[in-house]
């Protein structure tokens, strides 16, 4: 039996290659992601083990805040460590954020949106190669000493073209412009960067002054005297330090930091491998369809086997063995392809600005097992239904000439009923996940995921019912332009709705995701346009430049002072932003969230007028105004009391005096500016909105403000058009990235079209011969095959776009609280750019039509090359 299977595989090499290709691509993506992230993980393990190799005990601080500036230790407390028994030497360090680097032209050095720039002390107290800042070492030049010297990480130096000895300018949010000498260049680990983060190093006193943390530390490292028990020393140090200090062994610290990075990477891994699983899912349809066609094509061969005495189970076994063989070969090649992919990623990602440490490729048994299992199991499962059909082939079929490929007509009504019920179940799960109260059950994500999967299944069960009419319509359009070849293509596409639907299904899945991504980005764009155009009453806004990752980044108050002096400015409002922990006592328990707190001036509402509000929009001392959606989430009403905890000064009580509604208020929790300043101890603005006097436009005002702020390169003056185009660029970047990952799934879906068309050409050999005999020329023959592929692809794309729009709509309705004000179906390109076009649904409809033609070039060529006489004689 194995021999029959293997011969079956070998006899149809093209089919083997196409089916295997789907598995190779999907498995390749999954295992490639594993290999790559394992490799990075291994690199980080090595780096942290190395970084902490000279450190016996690591000291840090704990904070309730994940986004804040961190908490600090006093130098006086740290000095007590020296007195603890067993401590040989203790080295302090300080870290923070809040600087901007200028390039040689005096502009902000930026590589686009990314994480903030970190400031750290980096010192080499006794000429040791002792590293005190998580893995950085100076490899060029020297350690920075005194207030005139700085060191950059290799990424900054490369980006700005800086060399050791250059004069460089760094702007501190808190102390302003610093002109410095670049003393040295530091690298992380063996030479790579740290995920694209930028690092600026000073000696400790200078770091304290730049970050305005005199006498404060983030933590330190301790070396113990020979023979001392590390655990005992830890207990001793804990006794002299305040409660929020953490004291752990260097080994634990290395493992902890590596684990933290691994956790961050696992998000990356999951995100990337989702696209691999999607590709495999799409591939499973291709495999299912291939085996389905193969079985009906081989009806007579299988029936002959039955006639010769093979049992139903043996026939089923033959088909399944064939699937297993292809699955295993595909999965093996896929894992190999994945390793190559990981190698490629190591080369490509740094070029795209994502700096991660490198190491020799790490191929774990898990990667190979998951890859092989995924490829084989999916192929096997996809072939189950076709195999069952194969086993039901009647022995009589062998004796009848016309038995091949006559599709079983399942009851249409039954199909409609079953499909309808499945659809209802899927919709139920989806809507319950999105809008229902899932309570203590599984998370809403589970319901949404299951719902989406079930809806897919329902649509695929129902799609044969509409495949006929829809392809008829599409073909009708085509026939108008292409005449007879179009008519033949249309009829061919309609002749087996189930096959057309199954082929289109693979296209549908990938296009659904494409349409979903387009609809979401289109709606985000629409929301931004709506908010900026209709809900903000200001001509320009001043923001920190180049600090995309940090909404609480700030600039000096002199900026606003200078703007007040400009004649063209009619009015302005200043905004302070800091992270806080918002806590509300409810009857069922305590709700706490880390949230951005806005320090507002009384005139804030003049600049962002709400659609409606209750109470007041001008909070007095100890009062707070929040957005309606947040009030709903916390279930609070006017007069309730809320507690906000600040990292710098602890908890403060506030009374809710106003609830505002409207897109521009999304996410706002506003307290008086004076309260925020006293809570944080910092009077730094995060945003300034300015209204122009009557008759002055945004660009004119911007032109008037910019020169006055020339010596504040760390702030940017922007009109709302600027903000829109900046947001547009970011959205486009995101969309392009997702589309690039989906491209693989699209290709696999299209391979399914190639496969079906190749098999259809084979099946219709005699018919093509007849057509050729009565006068169909080669060119028209090719056109006929390509046109059919195009019709099937566009049918798939239509279903995908419909589903994508629906999922997008449901998601946006569910995320209304997050500020999605409008739902946009991006039929047309949003701009003339590549990303603008890629985000348009009509483009994808057209593109799948063209891809259908391209992916049918080979089957079309085969059809045209058939020898007429042999074709007519073909059985």
């Amino acid at each position: 039996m194995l021999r029959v299977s293997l011969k079956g595989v070998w006899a149809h090499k093209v089919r083997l290659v196409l089916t295997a290709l789907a598995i190779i691509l999907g498995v390749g993506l999954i295992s490639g992601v594993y290999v790559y992230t394992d490799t990075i993980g291994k690199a980080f393990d090595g780096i942290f083990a190395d970084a902490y190799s000279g450190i016996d005990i690591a000291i840090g601080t704990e904070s309730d805040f994940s986004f804040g500036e961190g908490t600090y230790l006093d130098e006086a407390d740290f000095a007590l460590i020296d007195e603890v028994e067993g401590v040989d030497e203790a080295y302090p360090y300080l870290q923070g954020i809040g600087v901007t680097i200028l390039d040689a032209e005096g502009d902000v050095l930026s590589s686009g949106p990314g994480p903030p720039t970190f400031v750290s002390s980096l010192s080499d107290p006794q000429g040791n190669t002792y590293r005190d800042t998580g893995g950085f070492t100076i490899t060029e030049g020297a350690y920075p000493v005194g207030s005139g010297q700085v060191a950059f990480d290799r990424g900054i130096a490369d980006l700005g073209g800086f060399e050791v000895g250059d004069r460089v300018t760094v702007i501190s949010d808190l102390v302003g412009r610093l002109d410095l000498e670049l003393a040295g260049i530091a690298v992380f680990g063996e030479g790579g960067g740290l995920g694209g983060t930028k690092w600026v190093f000073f000696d400790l006193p200078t770091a304290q002054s730049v970050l305005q943390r005199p006498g404060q530390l983030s933590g330190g490292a301790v070396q113990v005297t020979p023979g001392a028990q590390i655990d005992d020393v830890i207990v001793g140090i804990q006794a002299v330090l305040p409660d929020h200090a953490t004291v752990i062994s260097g080994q634990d610290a290395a493992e902890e930091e590596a684990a933290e990075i691994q956790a961050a990477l696992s998000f990356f891994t999951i995100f990337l491998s989702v696209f691999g699983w999607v590709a495999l899912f799409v591939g499973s349809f291709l495999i299912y369809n291939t085996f389905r066609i193969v079985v009906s094509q081989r009806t007579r061969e299988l029936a002959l086997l039955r006639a010769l005495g093979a049992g139903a189970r043996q026939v089923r076994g033959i088909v399944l063995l064939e699937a297993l063989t292809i699955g295993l070969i595909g999965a093996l090649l896929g894992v190999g392809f994945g390793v190559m992919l990981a190698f490629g990623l190591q080369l490509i990602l740094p070029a795209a600005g994502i700096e991660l440490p490198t190491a020799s490729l790490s191929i774990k048994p898990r990667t190979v097992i998951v890859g092989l299992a995924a490829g084989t199991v999916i192929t096997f499962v996809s072939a189950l239904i076709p195999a069952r059909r194969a086993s039901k082939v009647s022995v009589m079929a062998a004796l009848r000439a016309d038995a091949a490929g006559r599709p079983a007509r399942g009851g249409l009504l039954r199909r409609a009923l079953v499909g309808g019920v499945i659809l209802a179940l899927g919709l139920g799960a989806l809507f319950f996940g999105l809008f229902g109260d899932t309570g203590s059950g599984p998370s809403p994500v589970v319901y949404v995921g299951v719902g989406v999967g079930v809806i897919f299944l329902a649509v695929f069960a129902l799609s044969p019912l509409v495949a006929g009419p829809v392809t008829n319509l599409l073909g009708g359009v085509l026939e108008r332009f292409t005449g007879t070849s179009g008519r033949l293509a249309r009829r061919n596409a309609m002749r087996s709705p189930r096959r057309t639907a199954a082929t289109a299904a693979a296209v549908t899945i990938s296009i659904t995701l494409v349409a979903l991504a387009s609809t979401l980005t289109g709606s985000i764009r629409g929301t931004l346009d709506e908010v900026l155009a209709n809900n903000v009453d200001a001509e320009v806004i001043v923001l920190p430049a180049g600090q995309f990752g940090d909404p609480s980044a700030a600039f000096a108050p002199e900026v606003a002072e200078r703007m007040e002096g400009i004649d063209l400015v009619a009015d302005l409002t200043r905004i302070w932003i800091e992270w806080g922990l918002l806590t509300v006592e409810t009857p069922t328990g305590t709700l706490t969230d880390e949230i951005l707190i806005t320090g507002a001036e009384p005139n804030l509402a003049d600049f962002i007028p709400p659609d409606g509000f209750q109470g007041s929009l001008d909070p007095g001392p100890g009062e707070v105004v929040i957005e309606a959606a947040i009030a709903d989430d916390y279930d609070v009403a006017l007069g309730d009391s809320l507690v906000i905890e600040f990292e710098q000064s602890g908890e403060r009580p506030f009374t809710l005096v106003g609830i505002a509604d409207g897109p521009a208020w999304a996410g706002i929790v506003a307290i008086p500016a004076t309260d925020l300043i006293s809570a944080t101890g910092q009077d730094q603005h995060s945003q300034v909105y300015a209204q122009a006097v009557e008759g002055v436009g945004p660009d004119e005002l911007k032109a008037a403000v910019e020169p006055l702020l020339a010596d504040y390169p760390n702030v940017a003056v922007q009109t709302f058009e600027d903000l829109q185009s900046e947001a547009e660029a970011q959205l486009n970047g995101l969309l392009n990235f997702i589309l690039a990952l989906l491209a693989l799934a699209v290709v696999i879906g299209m391979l399914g079209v190639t496969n079906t068309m190749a098999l259809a050409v084979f099946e219709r050999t005699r018919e093509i011969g007849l057509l050729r005999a009565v006068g169909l020329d080669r060119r028209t023959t090719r056109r006929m095959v390509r046109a059919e592929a195009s019709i099937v692809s566009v049918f798939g794309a239509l279903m995908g776009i419909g589903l994508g729009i629906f999922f997008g709509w449901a998601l946006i309705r569910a995320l209304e609280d997050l500020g999605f004000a409008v739902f946009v179906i991006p039929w047309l390109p949003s701009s003339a750019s590549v990303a603008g076009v890629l985000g348009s649904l009509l483009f994808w409809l057209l593109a799948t039509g063209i891809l259908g033609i391209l992916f049918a070039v080979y089957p079309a060529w085969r059809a045209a090359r058939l020898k007429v006489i042999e074709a007519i004689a073909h059985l």
Partner: protein
Amino acid sequence: MYGWGDTRVTALDDMSVAFTRGEFTAVMGPSGSGKSTLMHCMAGLDSVTEGSVFIGDQDLSTLSDRQLTKLRRERIGFIFQAYNLVPTLSASENITLPLDLAGTKVDQSWFDSVVETLGVADRLKHRPSELSGGQQQRVAAARAMVSRPELIFADEPSGNLDSRASADLLAFLRSAVKEHAQTIVMVTHDANAAGYADRIVFLADGRVVDSMEDPNPERILDRLKSLEY
């Protein structure tokens, strides 16, 4: 010739045969005698390795594949033994297929008279799978006729039909020759079918071995016996 070296088979050997315009000619011979190959070569479906094939003044051996395709749809009609029709097209679409492919307008009155004569006028909307074998072959005959080709090739057209349907079809072919001066070349091994022809050409081993004018079945059978079939 097919194949090379030891496997080379000469299908048609030094044959010279002409078919007269406006005549119904039957080609007979045992299997392997080359009658199908002869027809394929004459229809531009296959090419000769030596010598020439003419339709009128046109030498087929000088034509490209495209020109041959054009020739087939404009000047030649086909009726095969079976599977004559494109299953996705209706009877009427099958009939006009060569005209549609050529982009030629259908002569409606000619179309009507052809389908009327063949008795398929009330089956035009049906798909081939909804027609009987005899109806299918008559639709195929209508297709061959409708473009008014100079020449119709019929390859065992009644081979799959019962005697009644077979007689209907052959009688139609006969009348097409008589009434419209249609030229028909029919390959057959059935003496009854050949009896409808004006002339019979007998083949054996790739050569013309005999011919007969105004045949009838008894004479054909006699002749076949004398040729030791």
